[in-house]
């Protein structure tokens, strides 16, 4: 359990940091300074994620898009941790008590991803 959770958190943070650093360097190389003056879309996290993924699938990649993906990876790391812990508690440890507890936390978190 500890190993799985530790790896999820480490992977999430690594992806986030890599996206942010790459976006920053790209921006620096293209406009000569590491600045970002755009705004993020005024919407909840779920739609933000959907919008960015659609853009990437259509091959639209830019420094700002990498930054957005980095921020999203950071936001979704704790979420993934909760969801995968629930799966682990139920499927591997057969600890239904904690399966229910993490399921509850996961439900509230899912709801909060849509709140605005």
């Amino acid at each position, binding site marked *: *359990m*500890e*190993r799985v*959770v*530790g790896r999820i*958190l*480490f992977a*999430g*943070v690594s992806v*986030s*940091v890599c996206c*942010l*650093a790459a*976006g*920053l360097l790209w921006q620096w190389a293209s406009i000569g300074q*590491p*600045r*970002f*003056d*755009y*705004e*993020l879309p*005024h*919407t*909840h*996290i*779920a739609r*933000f994620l959907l919008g960015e993924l659609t853009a990437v699938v259509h091959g639209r990649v830019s420094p*700002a898009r990498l*930054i*957005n993906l*980095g*921020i999203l990876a*950071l*936001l979704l*790391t*704790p*979420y993934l*941790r*909760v969801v995968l*812990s629930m799966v682990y508690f139920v499927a591997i440890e057969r600890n239904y*008590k*904690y399966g229910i*507890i*993490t399921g*509850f*936390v996961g439900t*509230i*978190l899912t709801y*909060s*991803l*849509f*709140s*605005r």
Partner: protein
Amino acid sequence: LTIGALFLVSILAGFVGAIGGMGGGIVLIPALTWFGVDIKHAIAISILSVIATSSGSAAAYVRDGLTNLRLGMFLEMFTMLGALAGAALAVSLPSRLLFFLLGTVLLCSAALLWARRKEEWKPPDSQDSLSRWLELEGIYLDHATGGAIEYRAIRAHLGGPLMFLAGMVAGLLGIGAGALKVLIHDLIMKLPPKVSTATSNLIIGVTALAGASVYLAQGLLLPGLAVPVILGVVAGAFLGTRVLVKLPNRVVHRVFFFLLLILGTEVIVRGIRKTP
């Protein structure tokens, strides 16, 4: 406001957050407002920094066996419900009074910790039935003493509802309230200081995430600030985790005491400055 200065401040914020079991808000919010960033934007970025400190430090603490995952997940239920309740109430309650109340709680807790500064942590004699049913116990290898330390949490029936209150304060005031969580682990549930810090670091991530969507939807998260802050905080948090595992529990307690003093004063000053 240069990106380099932001990065350095964020390293400090992540470092302090990882050692104190809180987000970097205690450092970041005053520093950003001092740089001339609007307080609303500063709070939104601080929410992001809490998630970064939490995931960055918890990744290491979980691997080191310092975080008690079951305790964290049990308490997350309460703190998240509290955060949602707090966010819903935020418009109708006088936040000035709340800042004073929170400041007083933090300073009183600091006084309590100071009074007990000579006591070393020792495991409680017996565990109540609810805490035992929830399997709230653990063992970790203390790098400072070289020995394995066994512990059991007690009073889960008090810890849960108090965590709800801590989550509510976080939702109401837009702060991480990690300090309150460490206090509950420490004073009520009798966890060893390092486990208190590490487990609080795990919990603050989901509490902050529950509020993050609202800040994003209101357009308060500025990517120009977010990039250097996240990168700095993650680096600082990583450094912090390497230091914490080596510190004796007594020193962890002492550091936390000073952080409480600073935070309590800061919160009261914010209450005074706020126009009602």
